[in-house]
C-alpha cells in the first residue's frame, strides 16, 4: 500500500469530494423524501430479480454446459443452438418477444385464463424473470462448457477407477472443479446480469430504474435521479464483486 496516497491522488480525491458536495448542495434533492419508500421497493425488486434469475440461470447452465462438453450429439446440438440463439440476439428483443408474444398468446386459451396461474401470468414479472433466466443460462452455458472441459481428464479417470458412480463423480469431482475454474468469470457475468436488469422496466416491472424514470416524469428533474441511479448500481456492483471475492477465497487455491 505504500505510495498509494501520492500528491496527485490527494488532489483527485479532493476534487471528487468537492464534486460530491457541490451536487449534494446545489442540485435538487427535495424529491428524495417523497420517493424514498418507492426507491427502497425498486432496489429490492432489482436485487431479487438479479438473485433469482442468476440462481435459476446457473441451474440451467450446468446441464447446458455438460451437454455441450460431454453429451451425445442429440443433446449437444440443441444445447449449442440454444446458446447461439440467446447470445446472438439482444436481450431487449427476447424480453419483448416473451412479454408481448406470449402475453398476447395466452389470453386466447380459455383454460389458461380459468386456471389458478392466470393472476400470476397476467403480471409482467414472470416474463422478466423468464427472459433474464434464459439469457443468463445461455451465456453461462458457454462458460460452463469451457469449465467442464478444463477439468483434467486424470481427475475423472481416477474417480472412475475408484468405482464412483457417474452421478457421484459429477457431484463430488467434476462440478466442484468446474465451478472453481469458472468462478472469476461468473463474477463478471453476474455484474453483466445486474446491468441487464433495468431492461425489465420496459415491460412495466417496477425496478429501481423504473422508479427513477417515474421521478423524472413526475418532477421534470432530469439529472439527479439518473446520478443517484448510477450510484446505486455502482454500490450493487461493489457488493457483487465483494461477494465473489469472498466466495473465491473460501475455495482453497494452490498457488504455484
Amino acid at each position: 500500500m505504500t505510495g498509494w496516497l501520492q500528491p496527485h491522488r490527494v488532489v483527485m480525491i479532493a476534487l471528487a469530494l468537492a464534486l460530491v458536495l457541490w451536487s449534494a448542495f446545489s442540485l435538487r434533492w427535495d424529491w428524495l423524501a417523497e420517493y424514498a419508500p418507492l426507491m427502497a421497493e425498486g432496489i429490492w425488486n432489482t436485487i431479487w430479480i438479479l438473485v433469482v434469475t442468476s440462481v435459476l440461470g446457473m441451474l440451467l447452465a450446468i446441464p447446458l454446459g455438460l451437454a455441450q462438453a460431454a453429451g451425445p450429439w442429440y443433446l449437444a446440438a440443441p444445447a449449442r443452438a440454444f446458446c447461439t440463439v440467446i447470445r446472438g440476439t439482444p436481450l431487449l428483443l427476447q424480453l419483448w418477444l416473451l412479454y408481448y408474444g406470449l402475453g398476447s398468446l395466452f389470453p386466447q386459451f380459455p383454460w389458461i385464463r380459468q386456471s389458478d396461474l392466470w393472476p400470476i401470468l397476467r403480471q409482467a414479472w414472470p416474463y422478466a424473470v423468464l427472459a433474464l433466466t434464459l439469457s443468463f443460462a445461455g451465456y453461462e452455458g458457454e462458460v460452463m462448457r469451457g469449465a467442464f472441459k478444463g477439468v483434467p481428464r486424470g481427475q475423472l479417470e481416477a474417480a472412475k477407477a475408484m468405482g464412483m458412480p457417474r452421478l457421484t463423480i459429477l457431484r463430488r469431482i467434476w462440478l466442484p472443479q468446474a465451478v472453481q475454474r469458472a468462478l472469476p468469470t461468473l463474477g463478471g457475468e453476474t455484474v453483466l446480469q445486474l446491468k441487464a436488469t433495468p431492461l425489465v422496466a420496459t415491460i412495466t416491472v417496477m425496478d429501481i430504474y423504473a422508479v427513477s424514470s417515474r421521478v423524472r416524469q413526475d418532477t421534470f428533474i432530469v439529472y439527479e435521479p439518473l446520478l443517484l441511479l448510477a450510484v446505486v448500481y455502482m454500490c450493487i456492483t461493489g457488493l457483487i464483486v465483494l461477494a465473489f471475492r469472498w466466495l473465491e477465497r473460501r475455495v482453497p487455491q494452490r498457488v504455484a
Partner: protein
Amino acid sequence: MNGLITASGLGPALDLLALSPPGWGGNLLRGLVNSIQIALGAFGLGLLIGLLSAYGKLYGGPVIRDLLAVYTTIVRAVPELILILILYYAVTDALNQLLVASGFARIQISGVMAGIAVLGVVQGAYATEVLRGAILAVPAGQIEAARAFGMPPVMLARRITLPAMLAFALPGLANLWLIATKDTALLAVVGFGELTLETRQAAGATKAYFTFFVAAGLLYLLISLVSGRVFAWLERRARRGEPGAGGGGR
C-alpha cells in the same frame, strides 16, 4: 412452391413481412441498416478511444492513468441503458448551452450521431482493457529492438506494436463487436428507430408479435453468424506468420 407455403401456414406471415408498404419488411430492413450503421460507428469510435486510452494507461503519467482507471471503472459498473440516458441528455444539453452561449442557434442532434457517440464511449472503456492486454502480450524485445533502431513512437506503433498485437486483440474485439450490435437495441428505449423499435412498432400495429420478433431475431442472428466468420478469417490472417497456427512456416 406456393402451395407449400400456404400448406405450412406461413402465407400470412410472409405477407406481413413483404417489403412494400402493406407488409412491414421494408421498415425492418431500414431498422437493420440503422442498427448496423450505429454499431459500425460506435465500434470504430470505441476502437479509437480504446487505443488512445490503452496507450495512456500503459505509457501515460500518473494523473492520466488514474483518470483512465476512473473512466473504465465507472463505465463498466453502470448499466449501458443509464449511461445512454445520462450521456444522451447531458451531451445534447451541454452542446446546446455551449452553442447558445457562443451565439449560435440550438441544434437537434440526430439520433444516429447521438447513438454512435454514446455507444462509442461505452465501447471505448471495454476496448481499452482488451487493447491494453493485447499490447502487453507483444514480446518486449520487439518493441525494444525497434526503439534501439531509433524508430519514432508513432512509426513504432504503426509498424511493430499494432500489427503484432492484432492477433491477441481480435478475439476480444470480436466479442466487443457483437456487444455493439446488440447494444444498439438499447437505443430503442430513447426512441431511436433501429431494428428492435421498428419491430415493436410493426408488431404492435399488426398484432403479429411472434412473426416480427422472430424475424428480427433471425436478422440479429444473421449479423452475429456472419461477423463470427469475418472475425475468424481476420484472426487467421493476423496469425498467418505465427509458427504452428495454420499456414505458418516453421
